[in-house]
């Protein structure tokens, strides 16, 4: 009955092995080839591994895990397989925070952009709970998320259109596309602990999400506190998604796709999907980030764009599968 189910243990084990292998591959690939024997040395090539690829890989895994688990939680909470972490509007408000720092040129100081993004996420979470009120109603909550998303999205567009210099416009637009390029240990130190705390909140929602499978009345009659569940979901998604956007910009579709991919193997019980979604999200993002590094393009393909490109054919396949079932 817990989030770590015996039945899904093998799946989690396989995904973990896959993730470790993908992370090692991610350390090996890039424009410069470094032999594994030289990874721990003192020369420049070891520096590429330890100061660039290791933090980038860790960050990719953490963000993938965060987005995957946040997506699985959102789908369980809203009882909708097409929900994603963006529904809460937290990623949009976090992006607005980051864009504000770029707009005013604060991003010259490295740590200010992620801090602004986290402040944006915090304000977004606070507004969301204020707007939704204390009823725990799903419809009010979804509507509050849509309002927040739309407001933060339009303010971001306003900032782009009013940007003081063409350079700032380019900087904002490029940042919004999401990437893990040139991330350092500072980004890891900032994002990973916040993501870890957020994931603890998300895991704690598991059993309540299971109860919600039978509808709100049945869940409440079994002692599930719907308002507490909402708080845990908001805090968990806020921390994980906020820290992810702060470190890498907006990377869409991971939270939407990954729970779909693991459900056939993990079963449909919401709590059983949480951990495999985190592991598969990490695997997918680290894999995709490795792929964008080795694609033969003039400049590196932005990770956010790569994930969006994956999203369309994935949902196309899902659509055709559902159409076949309907016929």
């Amino acid at each position, binding site marked *: *009955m*817990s989030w770590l189910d015996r039945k899904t243990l093998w799946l989690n084990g396989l995904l973990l092995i896959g993730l470790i292998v993908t992370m090692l591959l991610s350390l090996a690939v890039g424009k410069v080839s470094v032999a594994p024997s030289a990874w721990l040395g003192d020369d420049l090539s070891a520096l590429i591994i330890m100061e660039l690829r290791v933090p980038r890989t860790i960050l990719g895994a953490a963000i993938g895990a965060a987005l995957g688990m946040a997506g699985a939680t959102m789908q*369980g909470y809203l*009882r909708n397989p097409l929900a994603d972490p963006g529904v809460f509007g937290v990623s949009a408000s976090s992006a607005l925070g980051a864009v504000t720092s770029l707009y005013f040129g604060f991003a010259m100081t490295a740590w200010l952009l992620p801090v602004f993004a986290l402040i944006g996420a915090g304000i977004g979470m606070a507004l969301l709970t204020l707007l939704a009120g204390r009823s725990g109603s799903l419809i009010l909550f979804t509507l509050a998320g849509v309002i927040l998303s739309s407001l933060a999205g339009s303010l971001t567009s306003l900032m782009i259109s009013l940007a003081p210099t063409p350079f700032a416009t380019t900087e904002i637009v490029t940042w919004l596309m999401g990437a893990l390029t040139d991330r350092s240990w500072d980004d890891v130190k900032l994002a990973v602990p916040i993501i870890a705390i957020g994931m603890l909140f998300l895991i704690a929602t598991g*059993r309540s999400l*299971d*109860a*919600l*499978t*039978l*509808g*709100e*009345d*049945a869940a*409440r*009659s*079994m*002692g*599930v*506190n719907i308002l507490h569940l909402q708080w845990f979901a908001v805090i968990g998604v806020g921390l994980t998604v906020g820290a992810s956007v702060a470190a890498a910009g907006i990377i869409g579709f991971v939270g939407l796709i990954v729970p779909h991919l693991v459900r056939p193997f993990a*079963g*449909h*019980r*919401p709590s059983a999907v949480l951990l495999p979604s985190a592991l598969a999200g990490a695997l997918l993002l680290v894999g995709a980030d490795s792929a964008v590094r080795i694609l033969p393009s003039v400049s590196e393909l932005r990770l956010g764009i790569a994930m969006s490109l994956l999203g369309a054919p994935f949902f196309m396949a899902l659509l055709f599968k559902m159409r076949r079932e309907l016929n």
Partner: protein
Amino acid sequence: MSLAFENTSLTLRNRKILDDVSGLFKRGRVTVILGANGAGKSSLLSCLAGLRQPQTGRITVDDRSIHEMEGKERGRLIGLLPQRPDIHWNIDVKTVVGLGRLPHSGRWGMNAADHEAVAKAMEATDCTGLAERKVLRLSGGELGRVLLGRVLAGEPQWLLADEPLASLDPAHQFDVLDKLKNYAAAGNGVVIVLHDLTQAARCADDIMIMKDGAILAAGSRDEVIVPDIMAQAYGVEVQISTSDNGEPLVVPVRRLR
């Protein structure tokens, strides 16, 4: 050994749903709540299950207010079978029944007693053979049994069922009512909201009839299921007779204007 509500009033959107109602249910008995649509039956059941907090009044189990209990404790005492099956993910039957143990089990899952209770509930509702089936692929009758199994798995002292016969064929209606009667006979309290007057007369030890948010009549079957009260409650004329096997038949024959 009772579930009681005193001077309970509930107003929703400026409309009085329950108007200063009081009543008492006893353990070991099946009480059926009857009444026309909108009479307040489901709202009363929601209040009894602790899902709604009435504006005034007190709801108690053995003199303890249910609103002073922690959610899980209340869940262990009072089990609710809601009106509409509302299942969102295609999980297997065993998992659905297992969810009924949520008010009992700790954070890290089910223990041996939980597994035993689930097996017992599945056996009582003839779901053992369905254990691995996906819940959204079940027929209406199978689903009704599984959802009842989920409530029984929680071993509540009070079982509240809101129209458990809706969308069931007659054979499955008898099955579900027999299971509820057995549960009451084992010393638990069972409160059922029903629309079928004959089934109500057949299974109830006590009957409570509601009208416009108030209790119109309450008492034993023979005291309450009489043409006059039925006419007041539903605005219909009923014919009351006895079948060949001695079971009551309550048949609405025409609408009274």
